[in-house]
């Protein structure tokens, strides 16, 4: 949720501070980076809300109380580099909070990003398989192929693993769409041709028996 634009946030010192903070948090856990940037903006909005045009002195005082961007970045958990770590807190000894203080019941949520990535590893091969199946199913295969393309594009944009499978799925799905389009157009053309023959002759096509030579 965004806050209403605030005069204090457009002060050059605040703009520079927020830019520096974003850079300083570049190697922090993604969720913490997003949350921290949003929260610091809210903090500044609140702290500078009383003045329509805060003076540089007031802005400096608020920024001094917030602390340096390096101090804030040091308080954030570094991003987990290796996937599927059982306990990221244990893998980040520089974390200001000891791992032992984390309640056991909260462990699953703290490992969510790594686990999510690992869990999604099977999605790309499954998507490729679905694309191949869509090749041999007429008409409904086209719907499947469209679904596969959309899913693959979304997964590619969210940084899912096994990108080769996703690219393959898109390619196979496009082929399935082309095959289905050819089938549908071919059927329509055939149907149209038959209708035209019926219209021209004014009735049903005579049977072969009617051309049989007279005895």
């Amino acid at each position, binding site marked *: *949720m965004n*806050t*209403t634009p*605030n005069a204090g946030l457009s002060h050059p010192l605040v703009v520079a501070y927020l830019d520096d*903070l974003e850079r300083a948090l570049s190697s*922090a856990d993604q*969720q*913490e980076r997003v*949350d*921290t940037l949003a*929260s*610091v903006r*809210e*903090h500044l*909005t*609140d*702290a500078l*809300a009383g003045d329509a045009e805060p003076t540089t002195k007031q802005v400096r005082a608020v920024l001094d*109380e*917030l*602390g*340096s*961007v390096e*101090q*804030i970045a*040091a*308080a*954030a*958990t570094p991003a987990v580099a290796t996937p599927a770590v059982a306990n990221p807190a244990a893998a980040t000894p520089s974390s*200001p*909070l*000891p791992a032992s*203080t*984390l*309640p056991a*019941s*909260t462990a699953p*949520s*703290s490992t*969510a990003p790594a686990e999510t990535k690992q869990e999604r590893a099977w999605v790309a091969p499954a998507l490729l398989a679905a694309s191949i199946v869509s090749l041999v199913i007429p008409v409904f295969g086209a719907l499947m192929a469209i679904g596969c393309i959309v899913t693959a594009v979304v997964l590619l944009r969210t940084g899912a693993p096994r990108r080769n499978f996703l690219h393959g799925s898109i390619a196979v799905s496009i082929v399935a769409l082309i095959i289905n389009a050819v089938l549908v157009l071919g059927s329509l053309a055939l149907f149209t041709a038959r209708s035209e023959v019926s219209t021209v002759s004014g009735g049903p096509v005579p049977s072969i028996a009617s051309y049989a030579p007279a005895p």
Partner: protein
Amino acid sequence: MDSSADAVLTQLRKGVLEYCVLACLRQRPAYGLELASQLADARLLTSEGTLYPLLSRLRKQGLVESTWQESTSGPPRRYYQLTGDGITALAAFAETWRPFSDDVSAILEDTP
């Protein structure tokens, strides 16, 4: 205060700050600046900005949750409040802290 005392205090704060944040939320929800000011006034937080990565972790751990509420003096504010797990974690800390603190005090007094 000399630098070695500062270093000790920094380490001690790191160990307990999480629970001090939970304790600040025990009575009622609070928004970021309010919490930061309260902790800074209690000399538990030297840089108010360092509160926010901690709040993000507490939320990820399910110990606090946040909701947006309208403000009479500006844009909506994100209010933090304790969850059931947060109340349990705070109670466990409080139960452990008192005997621990007594033990540390006792050994410091005994040490010549």
